[in-house]
């Protein structure tokens, strides 16, 4: 049996295929196209190709993310909040708090021992505290977003930012560069600023061990380290790509729904 999950976000789209036991068979991450249906189709085409399967082989598919209602090949759609809870809990059953930092929003999700949603809080109004903040800073510093984490880990004294605003922080970065501060120290300051902002959100719903970080920003180790410092909690490292947790959760929901439907029959 093959179950599929598809997560179309603001900046990237992910697809995951799992088998009847919920094990990951294949996954794929791509940058989004302007149209969510195009993005979903491209990413699903690509993941199916990896394991030489076709759409006909999928027993059930669940979509999630911004464009989740428009995905033609999905039988059902579920919010990305539930999917993140589901996915993270499946990978690491003792997870109770998921900090999902995506390209354009940030969510803190609390789940119970069964992986069901308990509470959540979200910021999608302000770029500070999201991946867009990191992108803006990396662009101003002239470094690739993938280099920012390793660079920032080498910082010694983090630079202080005057506000949380992404636009103003970019001007701060320009000032720090012209003052001769090293990119390492600026990167470290950027990581800390982002962590402080995310922590404000964490404080709204509370935190319970174990904790994991998902979404593209989880790949930046300096941010994860800064989050551990500001929250004073250890962050568990997941053994799957943190960016596919939403799509994985969707695939697991697909599996659950399919098995339930079968039972009824």
């Amino acid at each position, binding site marked *: 049996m093959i179950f599929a999950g598809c997560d179309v976000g603001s900046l990237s789209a992910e697809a995951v295929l799992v088998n009847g036991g919920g094990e990951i068979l294949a996954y794929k991450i791509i940058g989004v196209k302007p149209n969510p249906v195009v993005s979903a189709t491209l990413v699903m085409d690509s993941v199916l190709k990896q394991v030489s399967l076709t759409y006909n082989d999928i027993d059930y598919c669940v979509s999630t993310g911004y464009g989740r209602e428009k995905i033609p090949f999905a039988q059902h759609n579920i919010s990305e909040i539930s999917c993140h809870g589901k996915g993270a809990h499946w990978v690491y059953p003792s997870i109770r708090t998921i900090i999902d930092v995506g390209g354009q929003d940030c969510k803190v999700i609390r789940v119970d021992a069964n992986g069901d949603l308990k509470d959540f809080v979200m910021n999608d109004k302000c770029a500070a505290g999201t991946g867009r903040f990191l992108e803006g800073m990396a662009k101003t510093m002239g470094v690739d977003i993938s280099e920012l984490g390793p660079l920032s880990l080498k910082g010694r004294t983090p630079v202080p930012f*005057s506000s949380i605003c992404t636009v*103003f922080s970019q*001007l701060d970065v320009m000032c720090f560069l012209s003052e001769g501060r090293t990119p390492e120290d600026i990167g470290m300051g950027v990581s800390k600023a982002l962590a402080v902002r995310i922590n404000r959100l964490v404080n709204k719903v509370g935190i319970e061990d174990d904790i994991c970080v998902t979404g593209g920003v989880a790949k930046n180790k300096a941010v994860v380290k800064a989050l551990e410092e500001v929250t004073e909690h250890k962050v568990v490292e997941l053994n799957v790509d943190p960016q596919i947790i939403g799509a994985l959760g969707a695939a697991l929901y697909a599996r659950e729904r399919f098995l339930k439907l079968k039972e009824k029959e």
Partner: protein
Amino acid sequence: MILGCDIGTGFTKAALLENNSLKYYTVVPTNANPDKAIEKVLGNIWESQKMELSDIEEVFITGWGEEKVSMDHVKVNLVNCIGKAAVWATPTCRSALHLGAQQSMVLSINDKGRVIEFAVNDKCATGSGRFLEVISAALEINVEDISNIIMSADKDLTISSQCAVFCESEVISRVNDGESVANIIAAIVHALGRSITTLAKRTNIKKDCVVSGGLAKNKAFIDYMQDLMKMKLKVFQPEPDIIAAVGAALHARGGK
């Protein structure tokens, strides 16, 4: 002769006052180096006024770069500078709106010309002049042309994003959807006007109200603000950007 300087993150503004009247002013880019900016200011003063530092009795400095200036000077408070200069320009002034690139400020002034209350937004770009710069860059237009472009707007649009960064993306997708630049920039000017009005409501805004800073030069914006606030705004003359520099120089003994 008194020199007042306001060293902002973007520009350094300088005003030369003699017996409380404005003799000369100049605006130079700060380029993150306040000492160099002051050097440039002194160079400009020498070129146009044939005056050296020794001809200047006192130097008063305010703004972001004040601490970084090595030249001898007196440090003055930005809010007081704006209050003093607003009253200097308009003696009947009871409030002032200072709309800089990175800071929006509203001041309430008593009948003795003293600042009694003020509120600042320097935390979020959406309520600042920088917002218009960011969106103008995304739309590939000049900030100075906004007033002209806006005249051809023919529809009220709603911009749903509240963050300048997210607005930038929204604006680009609106253009891709075929929306006119005039309608988009009009919606942005309105959003900015509303957020500054929200700030203004945090103090008691009374007539006469002096408006200064780079945004004060944007006619379309000021017209909209006048409608929103149901009040005539007096733009600081001769140059809305130099209000704090003038106010700094007004701190000299005998200045009011």
